[in-house]
């Protein structure tokens, strides 16, 4: 137990994500993000809270390099994400498992292949793929639907498949963008449990949500976004959803 705590402390002592004076403007009249300064340590669990349009998804897009900030710098580990070349960006993305709000599943691949694809991207062997994919599909209760294509799955199943894909390669950071978006409360609870479990294993987890139930279940660091700015950043779960 002592060793575990020591390792956890070591992990926590290192910043893994840093936003420095970040502004993102799509439309000059209403910037998506304004002057964001934010640090996330390795092993932390963070709830990113705010109403629709507050800037949560933009923040995630900036972190994975899907968008570039208008001003400021976004760091992941030692890499400056907004200036990373395509090769570095691919490496950064391999270290981040994202559960996208719209799932972004590969529509022409089966559930099995969707999960296996990530392992192929990082160069895992066939044996590792055959061993790990069924295991992870089992964790998210999709083992029986391994041969199904995304269009044959329900909203909740797609969400679980997206989670399986985000976790399969044991990334440094797992990001879930509105994980409860299309789910009923029992499915939401199950997904939050999975995220909490992988956080306990030392993975940095960021959950973007506007769902009070999700936030109250996580009970960790809560960053509240309002109109593109950080309204509050605290460990207090009695937050106000702006």
């Amino acid at each position, binding site marked *: 137990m002592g060793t575990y705590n020591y390792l956890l402390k070591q992990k926590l002592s290192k910043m893994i994500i840093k936003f420095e004076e970040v502004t993102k403007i799509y439309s000059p009249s209403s910037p998506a993000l304004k002057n964001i300064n934010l640090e996330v340590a390795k092993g932390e669990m963070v709830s990113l809270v705010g109403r629709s349009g507050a800037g949560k998804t933009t923040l995630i897009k900036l972190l*994975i390099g*899907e968008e570039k900030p208008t001003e400021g710098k976004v760091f992941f580990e030692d890499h400056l994400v907004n200036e990373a070349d*395509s*090769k570095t960006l*691919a*490496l950064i*993305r*391999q270290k*981040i498992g*994202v559960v*996208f709000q719209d799932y*972004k*599943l*590969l*529509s*022409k691949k089966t559930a099995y292949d969707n999960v296996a*694809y*990530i392992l*192929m*991207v*990082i*160069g895992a*062997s*066939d044996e590792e793929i055959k061993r790990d994919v069924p295991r992870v599909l089992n964790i998210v209760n999709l083992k029986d639907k391994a041969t199904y294509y995304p269009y044959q799955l329900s909203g909740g199943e797609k969400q679980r498949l997206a989670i399986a*894909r985000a976790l399969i390669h044991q990334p440094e950071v797992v990001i879930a963008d509105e994980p409860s978006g299309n789910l009923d409360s029992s499915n939401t609870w199950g997904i939050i449990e999975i995220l909490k479990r992988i956080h306990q294993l030392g993975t940095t987890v960021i959950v973007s949500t506007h769902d009070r139930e999700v936030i109250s279940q996580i009970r960790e660091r809560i960053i509240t976004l309002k109109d593109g700015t950080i309204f509050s950043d605290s460990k207090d779960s009695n937050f106000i959803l702006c």
Partner: protein
Amino acid sequence: MLTTFRRLIKFGWSGFARNKEASVVTIFVMTLAVFLISGWLMFNGLSQALINEVSSQMGISAYFQRGTNEEQINQVDEQLRESFPEAIEATQYVSPAAALEEFKKRHGGEGLYQKALEEAGPDAIRPALDITAYQENQYREITDYLGESFPSLIYQVDYLNRQEVINKAFYLMRKLDYFSLIAGLVLICLVILVVFNTIRLAIYSTREEMETMKLVGASNWFAWCPFVVQGAIYGLAGFLAANIIFIPLLFWLTPHLSLILPSFNLGIYYQAHCLFIIAVQLGASLGLGMASTFLATRYYLKV
């Protein structure tokens, strides 16, 4: 590395097999492209044969004084070749006996010619040297040279009689060559445009998939390679389909074309050049398929 390569081939094959409708359309266009390119190659062979045929008929004849023997004519021939090493394509000594034989063969049944020959006597036909040059503008120089260098031996060079025909024939040959080149270039441009746009449409539906691949950590080449493989499969399928139609058609056409142009046998020409033709077909189909896919996917890899 080998595993990754195998996976990319497998992804490419899956993409090809799953997009059945788009694949059928693309293969059809690719088949048409390979077919057109092959047709152009055969047309080139045909036009070259036609040019050679006309060119070989376009020589001049130097007629010698009666009594000039073969040895003297051979010396003239030798000196002529030494003086125009780059210009002379072929020469042929025609003895009076051979010329008479040829004359009889050609006009044997025509009484008027027979009568004229009898009246002119056995020495009516002079020995000659048939000369073929590579270019029509070299005939004048050759004619002048023969007249100036061998005035006692040369009776007449028939260049002036044939000048107009020779110039027209060479002009037409040059135009045919030029037309073939322009037609080939236009054809290649059209083929590239049509194939590129067809493949672009075929993989348009995969743009989101490609973006997702990038977002989950695939490198550029890992994301586009399967599509390039898919493009190569389109090319290969087009190549095979085109040849299934092209080769039988070629052998069916051969006897029909031989009636029009007896000196050109399409089947033999194909057999003699089949390695080159297959290499061009394969290179064009694979190259077009892969390059078009590569260019079309580049846009979607910006994520």
